[in-house]
C-alpha cells in the first residue's frame, strides 16, 4: 500500500522530468544549450527574492480560479466561466474603488466585497438558467465569459477609460491591497487565497454542508431521494464558485494589476479548470498545482528570454509538461500498469 502511494507521487514526477527532457531535446535541436535553459528556468522562478515573489504573485489568480473550479465541480456544476467571473470581480472592484476614490483603507474592503458579490452574481446567472430552464452550464458559462470580456472592453475603452490608451484609470493608491513585504510584490491577496484554499478543504471534508454538496455532485438523483435539495446546492455552488473567482479578480486588480486593459485575465479561467482537475479537485492540491503552474510560467519566460528560442517553443514545452504530468498520474489507475508495477516490486522483494 505504502509503495503504491509512493509511486503515485513518483510516477507524475518522473513524467514531468521526462517532459522536460523532451523539451530540452527540442532546445538542443534549435542549437541552444539545454543545461543553460534549465538554469534560466530555475533562475527565473527561484533565482532571487524578487523572482520568488513574482512566482507567488503569478500563482495568486490561478489559485482563485482553480478553487472556483474545485468548488463547482465538487457539486457537479461544470463551471467553465471562471474567467468571466474573475473579470466580473475585477470590474466591480475597480469600478467601486474609482467611484469612491481616495477615501482610505475601508474602500479596499468595500471593493473586494463588491468584486466577490459581482463574481457571485456572474455565477448565479448560469446557475439560474441551469436550475430554472435546465440549460447546460458549459455553454452558458462560455457565453457569459465572452459577455464579461466584451463588457470589460467597454469599460476600458469608454466608461472608465483614462488617457490615451484603452485602459481604465489605475486603482487609487489608498485602495490598493497592501504588500506583505514592502519591497516585494506579494500582497495579502495570496494569504486570502491560501486561507480560502484551506477553508474550502475544511468545508468540503469536515462539515455537513460540504459533505452534502459532494453527495449532490456525485449523484443528484440519490441525493434528492435522500432529502438533499439538489437545486439549492447547485445554485449555491454556482454562486460560491463565482464569488471565489470574483474575489480573485478583485484581489488581482487591487493588488497586482491596478487597472483593466485589453487582454486582462485572459486564460485564467481555463488554467483554473485544468489545474483543479490535475489536482483531482482537492482544494489543497489545487493551491499546490497553481503554484507549480506559476513556476512553469515565470520560469519559462526567463528561459525564453535567456535562450532566445521563440515563445511558441516555450508554450510547447509547457503543454508537454502538463500532458506528461497528467498522463503519469492517470497511468497509475490503469490495471495493466498497476499489475506491472506490483510485479516489479514483488520481484525485487523476492530478490
Amino acid at each position, binding site marked *: 500500500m505504502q509503495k503504491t502511494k509512493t509511486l503515485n507521487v513518483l510516477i507524475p514526477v518522473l513524467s514531468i522530468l521526462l517532459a522536460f527532457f523532451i523539451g530540452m531535446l527540442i532546445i538542443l535541436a534549435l542549437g541552444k544549450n539545454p543545461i543553460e535553459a534549465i538554469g534560466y528556468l530555475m533562475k527565473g522562478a527561484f533565482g532571487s527574492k524578487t523572482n520568488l515573489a513574482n512566482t507567488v504573485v503569478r500563482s495568486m489568480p490561478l489559485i482563485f480560479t482553480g478553487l472556483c473550479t474545485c468548488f463547482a465541480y465538487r457539486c457537479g456544476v461544470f463551471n467553465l466561466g471562471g474567467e468571466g467571473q474573475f473579470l466580473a470581480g475585477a470590474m466591480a472592484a475597480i469600478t467601486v474603488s474609482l467611484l469612491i476614490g481616495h477615501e482610505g483603507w475601508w474602500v479596499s474592503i468595500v471593493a473586494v466585497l463588491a468584486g466577490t458579490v459581482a463574481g457571485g452574481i456572474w455565477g448565479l446567472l448560469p446557475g439560474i438558467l441551469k436550475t430554472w430552464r435546465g440549460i447546460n452550464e458549459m455553454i452558458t458559462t462560455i457565453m457569459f465569459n465572452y459577455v464579461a470580456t466584451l463588457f470589460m472592453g467597454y469599460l476600458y475603452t469608454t466608461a472608465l477609460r483614462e*488617457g490615451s490608451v484603452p485602459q481604465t484609470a489605475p486603482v487609487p493608491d489608498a485602495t490598493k491591497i497592501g504588500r506583505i513585504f514592502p519591497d516585494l510584490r506579494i500582497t495579502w491577496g495570496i494569504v486570502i487565497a491560501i486561507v480560502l484554499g484551506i477553508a474550502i478543504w475544511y468545508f468540503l471534508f469536515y462539515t455537513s454542508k460540504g459533505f452534502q454538496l459532494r453527495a449532490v455532485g456525485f449523484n443528484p438523483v440519490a441525493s434528492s431521494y435522500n432529502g438533499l435539495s439538489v437545486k439549492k446546492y447547485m445554485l449555491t455552488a454556482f454562486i460560491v464558485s463565482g464569488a471565489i473567482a470574483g474575489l480573485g479578480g478583485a484581489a488581482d486588480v487591487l493588488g497586482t494589476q491596478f487597472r483593466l486593459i485589453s487582454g486582462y485575465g485572459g486564460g485564467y479561467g481555463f488554467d483554473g479548470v485544468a489545474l483543479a482537475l490535475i489536482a483531482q479537485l482537492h482544494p489543497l492540491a489545487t493551491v499546490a498545482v497553481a503554484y507549480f503552474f506559476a513556476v512553469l510560467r515565470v520560469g519559462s*519566460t526567463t528561459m525564453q528570454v*535567456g535562450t532566445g528560442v521563440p515563445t511558441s517553443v516555450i508554450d510547447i514545452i509547457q503543454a508537454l509538461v502538463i500532458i506528461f504530468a497528467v498522463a503519469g498520474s492517470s497511468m497509475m489507475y490503469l490495471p495493466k500498469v498497476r499489475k506491472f508495477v506490483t510485479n516489479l516490486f514483488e520481484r525485487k522483494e523476492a530478490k
Partner: protein
Amino acid sequence: AKTEAPAAAEKTFKVAMICDSSISDGGWGAACYNGMTAAAESRGWETAYTDAIDQSAYADTMISYCDLGYDMIFAPGNQYSDAVKQVAADYPNVAFAVLNGSIELPTANIMSILPNAQQIGSIAGIIAGLMSKSGVIGFIGGMELDTTKAKLAQFTAAAQVINPDIKVVSAYAGSFSDTAKGMELAASMINEGADVFFGDASAVDSGARQAIDQANGDTVKIYDIGQPADILGQNPCIVSSVVTDNARMIAICLEKVETGSFGNEVVFGSLENGAVFLGKFNDELMSADLQAQVAEYIKQLQDGTFGK
C-alpha cells in the same frame, strides 16, 4: 573621457522587444520588429524579442531581459506603459522605449516614441477623399486605441475637406488577428457603398484587403490604403501606403543610450522629420494628376494650411 571611449566602443549593446501579438503577423508586430532590427543593425546592436505573450507576462519578461543585462527594452504600444513604469523603477540603468507611449510617460529611463497619428490619418483621408467616387469610405480599427481613434478622426476630417459630403463607415474588429472578421467587416462596408479603405488593425487588414480584391474581381474599383509599412503590390487594390519609419525613431533612442543622454523625452515622428511619409503610388490606379494633388495637400498639411 579618453579611457571611457574605447570601452564603450568595445561593448556590444543589446536591445530587446516585447510584443503581445506575433512578430510575423504581417502587420503591427512585424513592422515594429523590422523597425527595431533595422535600427539595431545600423548601430551595431544585438537584438532579442519575445512575442505572443499574455498581458500578465509583460513585466516578468522585461524583468528577465533586465536581469540578463540588456541595455534597452523596446515596447511597441501604450498597453505596456504600466509594466514599463513598474520595471523601469526597479532597473534605473536600463532604458525603456515605448512606441506610441504618451507624452507624460517619459522619466529618467523611459522615452516615448510617438509617430504623428493625426498626420497618418490625414494623409489617408486625403487619398480617400480624392479617390472615392461613391462618396463613402471605410475604416476598420482593431482596438479602440487612442492612436486609432485619432487616425479615424483625421481620416474623416481630411476626407471631408476634400469632399464635404463624404460619408465614413467605421468599425472595430475587437481583435488584431481575426483575419476573417476583417473580411466580413469590409464586405459589409462595400455593401454600404464604401470604395476606399483604410485600416489600423494589423492582420485584420489583410482580411479586409482580400474582401476588397474579391469584390473587385478583374477591374479594381475599390481601393485600399496600406500602413505602417510600404506594402504596395501586395494586393491589387492598394493604391499607396502611409509609411511610418519606426527604424528611424528607434535609432534615435539607441543613439541616446550609447551617448548616455537617454530619458525624459518624446521622440516624435512626423512628416517634418521624415519618420512619417507617403509610400509609392500605384500608377495604374491613380492618375498623375491626382498624385500631384495629394502631394500638394500633404505640403499644406506640413505647413498647417490644410483645410484652412
